[in-house]
């Protein structure tokens, strides 16, 4: 089992900076994030966008800010569980917690800091009646193992890079691929678009544009998808339907942890950003208090105050003396 002082749920900018401030107080951090990479929204949604309100940086690309934060926290050796969602929480008798991920990873921690941003990123599911009942029975929102599709008939929906890339990659593996997209043009990388067009011209895939999937049918497994084009509506027999419409954030399992929540945000006391559950804090975009602003710089401030309170919880008998980094430097962990 992983053991840590502070388990940070969410490896976005606020979660990452928490490692630094906690490290100055000799508190060890572990981070868990549902995305396969660190940086949260900055990496997932807008890595190439400049941010203009980070103090001391007139302009910095979101992706560069994440790189800088990773560099800054390096001395404190944070550990990571990426690509997993914190799903279950148990409070132990001594006031510490055991958190279990959706993949069964167990983490023992004295304090939990939820820095979950807008929630955990989950695939967007098209609003088709009956779709949910075929999840894992022919309907997949992501491709985990391409071999699963060998000699199968696939319908891939979407117009972005993942839809294009998987259509290209699976075209050699699947028996037949139909790709369906709402418009005539694609938003993906140009060479991927070109490749898909070539595959279509060569008759290796069927490309249907200005069309949408609107119905599903099957018995114990998916059998067909109903397709609506500008001209007509018809059923296409397929073994698998792979809708690839990107990710969107959902509050997820933390909604069931007994926390006080207002409009998808966790209520906190601004004294130390503690929640109504003793030992759980919430910082950054996911928290809610009077006057809240969802800004990275506010999240940094919240993280800094939060770890002071967390210290008292981890070391109730020790006195905390505040030191400037300019005086004492950054003394990392070995």
């Amino acid at each position, binding site marked *: 089992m992983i053991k840590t002082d502070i388990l940070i749920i969410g490896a976005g900018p606020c979660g990452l900076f928490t490692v630094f401030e906690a490290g100055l107080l000799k508190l060890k951090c572990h981070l868990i994030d549902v995305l396969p990479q660190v940086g949260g*929204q900055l990496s997932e*949604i*807008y890595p190439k*966008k400049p941010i203009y309100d980070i103090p001391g940086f007139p302009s910095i690309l979101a992706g560069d800010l994440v790189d800088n934060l990773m560099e800054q926290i390096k001395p404190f050796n944070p550990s990571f569980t990426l690509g997993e969602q914190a799903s279950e929480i148990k409070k132990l008798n001594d006031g510490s917690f055991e958190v279990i991920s959706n993949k069964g990873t167990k983490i023992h921690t004295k304090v939990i800091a939820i820095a979950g941003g*807008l929630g955990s990123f989950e695939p*967007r*599911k*098209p*609003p088709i009646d009956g779709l*949910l009942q075929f999840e894992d029975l022919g309907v997949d929102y992501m491709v985990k193992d391409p071999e699963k599709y060998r000699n199968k008939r696939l319908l891939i929906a*979407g*117009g*972005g890079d993942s839809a294009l890339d998987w259509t290209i990659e699976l075209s050699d593996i699947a028996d037949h691929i139909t790709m369906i*997209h*709402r*418009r005539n*043009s694609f*938003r993906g990388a140009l060479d991927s678009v070109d490749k898909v067009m070539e595959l279509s011209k060569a008759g290796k895939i069927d490309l249907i544009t200005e069309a949408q999937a609107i119905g599903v049918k099957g018995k114990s497994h998916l059998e067909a998808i109903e397709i609506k084009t500008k001209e007509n509506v018809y059923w296409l027999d397929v073994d698998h339907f792979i809708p690839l*419409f*990107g990710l*969107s*954030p959902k509050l997820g399992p933390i909604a069931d942890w007994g926390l006080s929540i207002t409009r998808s945000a966790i209520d906190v006391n601004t004294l130390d950003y503690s929640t109504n559950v003793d030992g759980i804090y919430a910082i950054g975009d996911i928290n809610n208090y009077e006057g809240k602003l*969802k800004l990275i710089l506010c999240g940094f401030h919240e993280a800094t105050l939060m770890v002071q309170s967390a210290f008292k919880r981890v070391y109730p008998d020790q006195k905390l003396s505040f030191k400037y980094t300019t005086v004492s430097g950054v003394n990392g962990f070995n």
Partner: protein
Amino acid sequence: MEENIKLTVIDREGTEHNLEAPTDMNFNLMEIMKAAELPVEGTCGGMALCASCHCYIESDHPLNQPSDDEEDMLDQAFFVEDNSRLSCQIPIVESINGLTVTLAPVSE
């Protein structure tokens, strides 16, 4: 100071909300709807990088054309119609005085 313009937003239950918005503050429609506590997510903050402020334009006001970025994001939205727009990409300007929009449904 310039006068406010009037906007009508029909929510997902069909209720009409009459809003006013200043044209001299560089706002967009998503921001005005959020400020009025209407159920608009605006996840990305207005960069046309998510599709959570999707709405339908119900009146025939002359609007700016959707950018490629906006069209790309509409690809990730559902319930997209010919009059679909991302409200964060509609600036609050005098020429949209009286605009009526309906909030698009949200999916799971």
